[in-house]
């Protein structure tokens, strides 16, 4: 979607500390040039294909369709990207831009760690230094991702200020960029931040919707009637929606995280029910969850990737102009939808994506069998094993962890023992 000087209606813009002005301008011009450079676009498609496995399939879910008894259900399989989520599309694109700008280092924020991992993967492949900021609470909740980022050579910095989650990680990434802009690029993971990031991330993610256009014509001879996507920052939703914006007959539904209740701090609903208000923070104007003094508030979702206090200015604008209908699903509905997909189709969805599933499943039942819906399965669910096991109240999981931990430490002792033995021998 084209902005007007970085604005989408009243949202967007570039509200960053003055020190970042030149870098922001550099990204603006580099992105404009790159988009119009056939060799850049060719390289982008090559990397998408060879490194991430694109195009991803559009999967017809016959069992689910029959079970729901309404519209034909299709899943856009972004879970099959390298790294297991749509995040890769954007990181590959921005990685190529970093090379084009001649920068040597990337900085990124991450919530659950999906964007952090994708960034660390690409940085390793491109030979870039990589620093990932992650809220200290998220580090504790998502340690396996931290482990892999570090193995990939990234420096992971736990952010201990404020709510110690994604929003603080984003603040800290901006602070790093303020002193490192000469050789570093801030590789933001969603369609937020100062211009041109919302437009640029949307551009790189739009490959999702472009493929869906072709695939739906090939597989069912028409465009989908409805599209569904979860909305954290907004990048997977905009990736799916943007190529269809001019197709007025295609309805679009964005799904936010209703968490565990409607009180402030229990959900991440920014756009429905006026729970969020217009504001300017973290480099852009959009809708944020905030109090009457303009202080940003805490959020919750069972899906770490949807637990964000703001939202893309493009989504805020599309919701305000009613081009996108906003809906939400709570933690419980999300787990039920996740479970249904596991049982009916043999696909393990990310909890983020399960938000889109929850609302789509509910609505599909009221549609006709000659109608088609496409749900963006933005990521795979392997990463959620700890949360899901706990939520499904799996009886074996905790004993498994305890046993594992015991063995883990015993192995340590064995190793310590052998080390001390070998030292004794040397002595």
């Amino acid at each position, binding site marked *: 979607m084209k902005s007007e000087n970085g604005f989408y209606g009243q949202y967007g*813009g*570039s*509200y*960053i*500390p*003055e*020190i970042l*002005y*030149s870098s922001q301008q550099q990204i603006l011009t580099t992105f404009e040039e790159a988009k119009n450079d056939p060799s850049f676009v060719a390289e982008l498609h090559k990397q998408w294909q060879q490194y991430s496995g694109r195009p991803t399939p559009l999967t017809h879910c016959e069992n689910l369709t029959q079970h729901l008894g309404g519209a034909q259900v299709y899943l856009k399989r972004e879970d099959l990207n390298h790294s297991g989520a749509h995040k890769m599309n954007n990181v590959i694109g921005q990685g190529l831009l970093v090379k084009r700008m001649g920068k040597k280092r990337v900085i990124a924020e991450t919530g659950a760690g999906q964007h952090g991992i994708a960034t660390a993967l690409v940085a390793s492949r491109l030979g870039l230094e990589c620093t990932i900021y992650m809220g200290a609470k998220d580090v504790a909740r998502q340690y396996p991702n931290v482990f892999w980022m570090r193995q990939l050579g990234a420096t992971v910095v736990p952010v201990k*200020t*404020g709510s110690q989650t994604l*929003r*603080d990680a984003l*603040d800290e990434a*901006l*602070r790093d960029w*303020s*002193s490192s*802009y*000469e050789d570093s690029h801030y590789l933001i993971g969603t369609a937020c931040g100062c211009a041109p990031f919302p437009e640029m991330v949307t551009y790189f993610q739009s490959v999702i919707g472009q493929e869906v256009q072709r695939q739906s014509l090939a597989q069912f001879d028409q465009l989908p009637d409805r599209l569904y996507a979860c909305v954290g920052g907004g990048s997977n939703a905009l990736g799916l929606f943007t190529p269809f914006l001019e197709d007025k007959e295609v309805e679009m539904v964005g799904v936010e995280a209703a968490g565990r209740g409607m009180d402030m701090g229990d959900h991440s609903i920014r756009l429905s029910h006026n729970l969020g*208000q217009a*504001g*300017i*923070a*973290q*480099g852009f104007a959009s809708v*944020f969850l*905030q109090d*009457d*003094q*303009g*202080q*940003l508030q805490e959020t919750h979702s069972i899906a770490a990737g949807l637990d964000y206090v703001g939202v893309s200015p493009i989504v805020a604008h599309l919701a305000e102009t009613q081009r996108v209908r906003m809906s939400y699903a709570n933690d419980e509905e999300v787990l039920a939808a996740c479970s249904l997909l596991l049982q009916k189709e043999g696909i393990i969805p990310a909890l983020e994506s399960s938000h889109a599933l929850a609302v789509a499943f509910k609505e599909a039942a009221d549609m006709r069998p000659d109608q088609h819906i496409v749900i963006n399965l933005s990521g795979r669910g392997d990463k959620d094993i700890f949360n899901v096991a706990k939520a499904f109240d799996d009886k074996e999981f905790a004993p498994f962890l305890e046993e594992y931990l015991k063995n883990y430490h015993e192995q340590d002792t064995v190793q310590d023992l052998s080390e001390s033995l070998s030292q004794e021998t040397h002595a």
Partner: protein
Amino acid sequence: MSQLANFINAKQPLTSQPLAMTHVIYGYPSIEASLEWMQALLEMGVETLEVQFPFSDPVADGPSIVQACHKALESEPKIQQCLTDLGRLGRDYPNSKILLMSYLNPVYRFGITKLVKEAAEQGLTGLILPDLPIEHAAEYQDACVEHNLDAIWLITPNMPTERIKQIATQATGMLYCVSRSGVTGQKSSLQTEFDLAAYLAEIRQHTDVPLAVGFGIRSPQQVAELTGLADIAIVGSALLDAHNQGGIATGKAMVANLFPQLA
């Protein structure tokens, strides 16, 4: 002519050491305590007092100020009350000028024009909004002109000449000249990183408003080095660190040490 610029020019023959701009955070460690601290500084005669209204996400600030802002938010400060409190202090100490600094969102919630109007009514002389770029500032600038309050802009190192010109020619009151990259509170020696004199000279070519230099000032030498180059030295994180360490007494000692005219 700007009240603030007149005030600074009257106090500051460029040959003497720079005037003081001391930075404090409203509500840190509590609203009462922060007002006492401001009063102590005004009592010492600091020429300008920069008061930061806390925000949850202060992206241009380093660890000391970030932490203090989060602590300050625990007492749920209100911008309306802040204006009232600063107005009272300003009336008690008419020989100093008080400036309000805030990130955009609290100001935006309050209403930007309303803030300018009420700040002016309370006798504040300037506003600093570090995340408002000049190209998005028309409404704010109009309100400032209408209410005779100075919108204080930042100039940063490595800023393209064109942009220095664009900002400097719209400057009122003073320009806040950042002396290095990064956020507040990082250590820096003013002269080694780049040619500060050349930087300030370039800014001077485009404006005759007073120049204030800040970011990383911690030592009397750094302040002294600004003599003849700048009108004001801004001390923020270092003062906060001193205040954290030993309260008002230690904070005052630091100000006296940095600014001989206040000792």
